[in-house]
Every structure is written in structure tokens, then in C-alpha cells.
């Protein structure tokens, strides 16, 4: 278990893997590997076809079908404060807030862990690594019981802080990796000039690791945006529920399920993370694979 030897790519602006030499010849005929990959990719797309087609089909059923009269009626039907805007805004508050808290705490915590060698640093980092493996599902009942005790159930700030904490161990680990990639020499000059830790961090280190911070932030946002169990347990009032939970209650709310509207709302709810993913693209993968370097 080495904690320091692997550093996720992405601290440097160009995170593309080095060319792999002979195994990747460009401009040749598609080989069996290409065909096999395309076949797997096609199979992966099949379940997606329904949600896309049904969202444009007012008569959508469970089975995938080309819309008889394609139109935006389903979107028009769900684009109202009750169904879409309020749950989405709650998601922004909950997940955006959690991401902000996570990133700020992770950057602050990563600084001493990355910059100073201390006897406490290694046990602390090991604890963080173990905490990344802790299944949050398994502690939700005690968390709920605790929140009942201190009257925090259905409190948005408490849910934000809990969600932030659940993402924090991995965020600290990732951020420390990115920070290790920033050379220390420039800071040493700033220190001798008498700059405080926070100023050095803000003015020198952060600008140099902006791509890394973006990976951590987007990674955290994607994880929290999709999280269902935490808001499902900790938030109760309908006007506080984020899109993850309101999508779940969608079918029960309207009795007869309007599948077209369900599909349209699914697409609206997924859109932000899909767009972020396409923006960050390959670099998000590097945040991801850092987990492989974690204990490898």
C-alpha cells in the first residue's frame, strides 16, 4: 500500500496518456477488437434508447418505440415549478452546497498533508483511505437516529453537511494527490517573504492546480447529484426534496404513470451531470482511476 507513489494525472494541463507505440496504429482497417468494442457499445446503448425516444412520445409505453407523433409535449408538461424547477433547485442547493463544502474542506486539509511531513500525517491518511471504503448505506440508520435525537431530520443544511462529509474522504485523497504534483519551490520563496499559509495556498498553490480542483469538484457533484439514499432518508417535506427523490415518487404521485413525462423528467434531471461529464471528459476518468492507484 503506497500512498504517495501514485499521483492522479490532471494536475498538469495535458492529462492524455502517452502514446502507446506500436499497439495503436492509426489509419488501418477496423480489426476484430474494434468490432467487438462497437458491439459492446451498441448493447450499452439499448437501455438508453427508451428514455430518449419516450421523452418525445406523448403515447409512450414501457417498450421502446419510435414516437408516432414526436413532440415536446412531455417536456412542456413537466416544466413547471411543482414537477421540475423546485426539485432541481433543491438538488442544486443540496449537491452544489455539499460540493462546495467538500472542495473547500478537502483543499484546506490536503495542504498540510501534502506539504509538511509529520508523524501524524500517515496514520491520518490511512484513516482517510479506510473511510473511502466505508459503505455510507450501512451508517444511514444510525445517522437518521442521531438526526432524530438532535432534531435535524428534514433540515437542508444538515443534509448538505452530511452529504459533504460522505464525499470528503475521497475528495481529500484526490486533492492531496493533485497537490503533490505542484512543485514546492515557489512556495518556499513566499514563506520566507512571510506569507501566511492561507495566502500561499490561495495565491500560489490553487491557481497551479485548478484542473485538479475541477476534477474533484465535478467528481463530487456527479456522485452527490445521483445520490438517492441520503436525501431519501434525511429530507421529508415535499418542498425540500431534490430531483433524485422526486423522480422516485414520480410514479406514485400521479397514479397512472405518464411514462413519457417520467422519461422527460429523467432526461432533465440527468442533463447537468452529463453535460459536466462531456465538458471534463477524459480528465474525469483520471480522477476515477486514482482509486486504482489508491492501494495498488
Amino acid at each position, binding site marked *: 500500500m503506497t500512498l504517495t507513489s501514485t499521483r492522479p494525472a490532471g494536475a498538469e494541463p495535458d492529462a492524455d496518456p502517452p502514446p502507446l*507505440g506500436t499497439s495503436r496504429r492509426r489509419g488501418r482497417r477496423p480489426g476484430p477488437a474494434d468490432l467487438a468494442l462497437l458491439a459492446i457499445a451498441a448493447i*450499452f446503448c439499448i437501455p438508453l434508447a427508451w428514455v430518449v425516444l419516450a421523452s418525445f412520445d406523448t403515447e409512450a409505453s414501457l417498450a421502446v418505440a419510435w414516437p408516432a407523433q414526436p413532440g415536446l409535449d412531455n417536456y412542456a408538461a413537466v416544466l413547471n415549478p411543482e414537477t421540475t424547477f423546485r426539485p432541481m433547485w433543491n438538488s442544486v442547493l443540496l449537491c452544489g452546497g455539499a460540493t462546495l463544502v467538500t472542495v473547500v474542506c478537502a483543499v484546506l486539509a490536503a495542504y498540510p498533508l501534502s506539504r509538511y511531513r509529520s508523524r501524524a500525517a500517515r496514520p491520518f491518511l490511512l484513516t482517510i483511505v479506510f473511510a473511502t*471504503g466505508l459503505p455510507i*448505506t450501512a451508517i444511514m440508520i444510525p445517522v437518521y437516529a442521531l438526526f432524530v435525537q438532535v432534531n435535524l431530520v428534514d433540515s437542508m443544511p444538515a443534509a448538505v453537511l452530511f452529504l459533504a462529509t460522505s464525499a470528503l474522504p475521497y475528495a481529500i485523497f484526490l486533492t492531496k494527490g493533485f497537490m503533490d504534483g505542484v512543485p514546492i519551490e515557489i512556495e518556499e520563496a513566499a514563506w520566507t517573504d512571510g506569507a501566511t499559509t492561507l495566502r500561499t495556498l490561495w495565491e500560489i498553490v490553487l491557481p497551479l492546480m485548478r484542473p485538479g480542483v475541477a476534477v474533484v469538484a465535478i467528481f463530487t457533484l456527479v456522485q452527490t447529484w445521483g445520490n438517492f439514499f441520503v436525501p431519501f432518508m434525511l429530507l421529508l417535506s415535499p418542498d425540500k426534496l431534490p430531483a433524485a427523490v422526486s423522480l422516485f415518487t414520480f410514479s406514485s404521485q400521479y397514479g397512472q404513470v405518464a411514462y413519457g413525462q*417520467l422519461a422527460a423528467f429523467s432526461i432533465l434531471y440527468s442533463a447537468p451531470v452529463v453535460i459536466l461529464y462531456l465538458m471534463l471528459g477524459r480528465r474525469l476518468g483520471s480522477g476515477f482511476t486514482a482509486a486504482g492507484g489508491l492501494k*495498488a
Partner: protein
Amino acid sequence: MSADVSADTGTGRAPVRRRSRRRTLLRGGPLVPAVVLLVLFLAGPVVYSVYLAFTNRALRGEGSDVTSFVGLSNFTDALTSPDFWNSAGLTLVFTVVSAIIGQNLLGLTLALLMRRASRPVSAVTGVIVVGAWILPEVVVGYLWYTFLAGDGSLNALLGLVGLPDQELLTALPIIAVSFANIWRGTAFTMLVYTAALAEIPEEIEEAARIDGAGPVQRFFELTLPLIRRAVATNLMLITLQTLSVFGLIYVMTAGGPGTSSQTLPLFMYEQAFSYGRLGYGTAVALLLLLIGGIASLGYLRLLAKEDV
């Protein structure tokens, strides 16, 4: 003074001991917000769950007004309950089928194919597979519900080619949710293995090829031993992730029909909230953690043994 600010200064030397302690505190300062959050919201609940699991705390009825210690009875209740063992067995099936076999082998296959495929094809496949992981859990649950439902897409497609209908969601729901979990989780394994394979020097493979080793032999005798650490790490991480899947199964089957897809997280949720037995639900959660811990230790031992 310059030595004091360099990163490699370890503990302070004797004359500056007091100053160095102050400095340690100052330096540790930025850790405070993270530590406070982790202690309050992560360590706190873990410690509290150990207490809760030995009580009869309940949402209503006995144990809701006065909580009392009940010793090990929550654990003995669980370990003697056929419903618990049903859930434990289903959790095992779900983890083995969807993580250890499904995600692991499909992810490895994808990573190996990507090494041989052309760059645009691997890029497109990568975007699609990772896209499935990006989608929110509840959306994936609905996608696979509509895909596998009796009058859903898969049966429509099977009908087109003249094959009989499948009834996975009612007949073998645990397999149905396993498929959904493979679809959703394979990206992780694929990326981990892609990174591990990229570390293998080209020359080694080339040498083996020249020595006349076939592709199968090269894989088992060369590639696999070289990425074994990534394999063990990956197996540990996907096992922990899969053990705690809740939303996906809850949306697709809600644990049913009956309890035929009720894995431990759903069982624990039902006990705690449908029946209000918080203490009992927490005991089950601790058993789930224990299973995860044992599995992790197993994978770590696998690593340690192979390193000798």
C-alpha cells in the same frame, strides 16, 4: 530559519521544541474543518451504531419512549432469522454475479480490447460506458425496469426476432438487478484496468510474442501477474460498492416480488423504517459492514501472499 520552512524538516530539534509544537498546531490548522465534519458525521454515527445495535431503540411501540440495552439479542435475532439469511444469500449472489463476475470480467475485456482497437473506437466506447456510470442511480433503475418489464423493450425486441418473452423481473429479480448493476458499474473496473495495463512496458509483451507465446498464454502468464495488484484492489472496491447498493434495487423491484431481491441494505431499511426497529436495523447494518470488512481483508491477504 530556512531549514524550518522546508518540507523535509521533521520534528523540531530540542532547543526549538516549544516553538515547533506551536508551529505544528498552526500547520495543522487547515485540517480542522475536515476533521470536525468527519468526526461529527462519519465517526460519530459509526460509534453511535455500535451503541444502537445493542439497544431496543424503535420508532414506535416498545423502545420508542425508553431505550434499554438488550445485549446481543438483536444479533441473535438476525442470525436465527430465515429472512436475514435469505437477504444475506441474495447479497452474496448480487455481489458475485454483478461485481466479481460481471463488472470485473466485462471491465477487463473492455480494457484489453481498447489496447488493440483504434483510438476513435476506444474513445467512443469509453464515453458510452462511462456515461452509464454518470447517470443518476434512480434514472438507471427506471431504464432497466422499462427495459426488462413484461411489456418492456427487451421483450419487444425478442418478439421481433421470434424469441419467447423473458420474465426476469418476476422470475429471477436478483439477476435482473445484477444486470443493471453491471451496466452501471463496469466503467469503474474498465478505467482501473486501463490504467494498470498502460503501465506494462511494450517490450515485455513484444518479447513474449517473439518467444512464440499465444495470446491466451501471454494473458495468463504475463499480463495477469503484472496487473494482479490492480485486480485485488479493484475487486475490493467494487465489492464494497456493490454491497451497499440500495436505490437501484429499490427503484427496480423494491426488494420483491416478496423478498426475492431483498438484499441486506433493503432488508435493513425495511426493518428500521417499515417496522420501526432502529436497533435491529443497525445490528444488520453492522453485520453488513462486517461482511465488507472480511471481504476486504480477504483481498488484502491475497495481495500480501502474492507479494512474498
